[in-house]
């Protein structure tokens, strides 16, 4: 059965590592739903978070093949119930009337988002959080007319004391 998986990868911070990983996904016909990369607290080490779809067999191969890459130090699947997942979205919404604006601001507040910019005809919302929460807000905003939207990849960390 095809499921959504979040994979966290600890890598040596070297040129080409991202290309190696992206190339591996392409070459082996694995899917990248979204990807985020950033430094860690350790020098020379970066962390890549990939969200992917696949059955258990595919997931197993993804993890094993990633582990084969020389610069990959650790690979873990992040179990949904033990993982804090966050994404950032910026959404520019069509809001020509005061009524539209106030409704959008209310929704944004309920979702603990922020108003990043307002113009006479638009309002731009910034929201971070669990990808599901972001999608829920976007669904609410869609009827007003989304003029533009951008999302970062999901980044994730394990709950509790465990580390990668």
């Amino acid at each position: 059965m095809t499921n959504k998986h979040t994979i966290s990868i600890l890598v040596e911070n070297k040129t080409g590592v991202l290309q190696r990983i992206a190339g591996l996904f392409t070459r082996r016909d694995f899917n990248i739903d979204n990807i985020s990369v950033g430094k860690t607290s350790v020098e020379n080490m970066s962390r890549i978070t990939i969200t992917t779809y696949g059955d258990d067999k595919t997931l197993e191969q993804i993890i094993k093949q990633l582990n084969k890459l020389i610069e990959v130090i650790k690979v873990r699947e992040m179990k949904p119930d033990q993982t804090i997942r966050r994404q950032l979205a910026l959404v520019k919404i069509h809001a020509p009337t005061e009524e539209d604006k106030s409704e959008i601001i209310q929704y944004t507040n309920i979702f603990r988002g922020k108003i990043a910019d307002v113009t006479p005809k638009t309002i731009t919302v910034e929201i971070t959080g669990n990808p599901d929460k972001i999608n829920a807000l976007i669904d609410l905003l869609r009827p007003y007319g989304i003029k533009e939207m951008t999302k970062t990849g999901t980044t994730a960390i394990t709950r509790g004391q465990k580390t990668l």
Partner: protein
Amino acid sequence: MKGSKLLIDKLKENGVDTIFGYPGGVLLPFYDALCESDINHILVRHEQAAAHAADGYARASGRVGVCLATSGPGATNVTTGVATANMDSSPVVVLTGQVPTAAIGTDMFQEVDTIGITMPISKHNFQPRSPKRIAEDIDKAFYIASTGRPGPVVIDLPRNVLEEEIDISSLTINTDIPGYKPTKKGNLKQIKKAINVINQSKKPIIVAGGGAILSDCGKQLYEFAKLANIPIATTLMGKGIISEYDELSLGMIGMHGIQTTNRALTECDCLIAVGCRFSDRSVSNATKFAPNATIIQIDVDPAEIGKTIHVDIPIVGDAKITLEEFINQMDKTDNANWTKELIAKKRDNEENISYTQIPLKPQECIKEIMEAVTADTIVTTDVGQNQMWMAHYYKTRNPRTFISSGGLGTMGFGLPAAMGAQFAKPDANVLAICGDGGFAMVSQELATIKENDLPVVVCILNNRYLGMVAQLQKLFNDHVYATKLTATPDFVKLADAYGIEGQRVEKVGQLRESIENAFKSREATLIDVAIDREELLPIVPPGQSLDKMKMTFDEE
């Protein structure tokens, strides 16, 4: 010290005595330093051959093979050889030249993104961007190429890095690679579980692949098989891990394997895979492969486990070390009935080759080749029918004496690989078996053979067409197109043009004599064998299970 001198010193430190290479402008600093060292530079006539020769050197000797190509076109020419070594897990270090670091990315003359190109076809690659990195990257490259599951490592060398001066007294080398720690010892619990299954099985079979050859576990494998009286089959890449004349040997499995052996795989209740990646050519239809067996897989590469076939008991580790543990843990068991029956059946069904026709039948040729060689003769093959006739009929007696491009199926591999093998084993008799198509792809290497007085014997099984493809077209599409080699040159004259002894063989008995004489003379010899256009049989049609071998072409 200059970067290039440091590079040469490092190569020497890593045991390099021979480099197969082809020069170019950006490599001048390298060649400057090389000519002052005692490393032997073999000038090939095409970079692809450099990589195949380094590969052949590695496969014949178990040491790391090294080749060199210039930037741009040199690097792209070498890639077929990199991919070939990658698919067959051959330890090769490939050095390529690169434009100076300051010019990288400017589309300079002869610039190509070698790192990008070779990333998906190598085990790893490096581009030292300052001379300081050379020492570390070379050490890492040799370590990565030769350990775990071996493979090719590319080092892309910008020209200025070779030219710049470096103070080696201040050089620190850190070769720790935090993400690369291959597992050598198989898990003991899993081994015990496996032994349990083996003890309870009535119809066990071992299938040994290229990984078994790479880990040099022949002795351990045989001892293990003897203890439990289990017959040993191999894949193409595993040929020679035990002698195919041995009473426990079942020969090759797969698309062009031995019929009895393929059938036994469908019947067996326990399959022990040793360093074998269950490729489609060995397994055919994965869902119908060994359907009744508990599958135990020993492999140093965890990613090979469960990749194509469901494995019941995975054991990650080096085959030699792991089999030693099996031997320690195992009591003698007996599967004498199954084994005896199987071996007898195999022997009864063994194709009784004896053809006296003209043109010669390829099967007859393989028989004569077998009569002409000794246990330590190294044969390389090219790709096509010639390769599969050899794989099917030729009985290999020792590991590392059957060298063939399995995973990539690279035409043009046989001849340069034979050159490489001859450099690795100067005293051995080396025989390259080629098709007329594949030989023509690399025939320029006769010059390299001549120049270095290599006693390589080349045997062209000349059917005047691209046999393997023609056969597939006939079998599946009922036509033949673009496979006739009508303008093939006179290979004997071609050999003569290179100053190499050429002979034509047309009659039964001549081939054996020709090869024997060539070996005796210790001179390079090309033997052009006029063979009949003949189908390659038996064959498992693609998608079928292994027990559904076709013995003739028109059978329903």
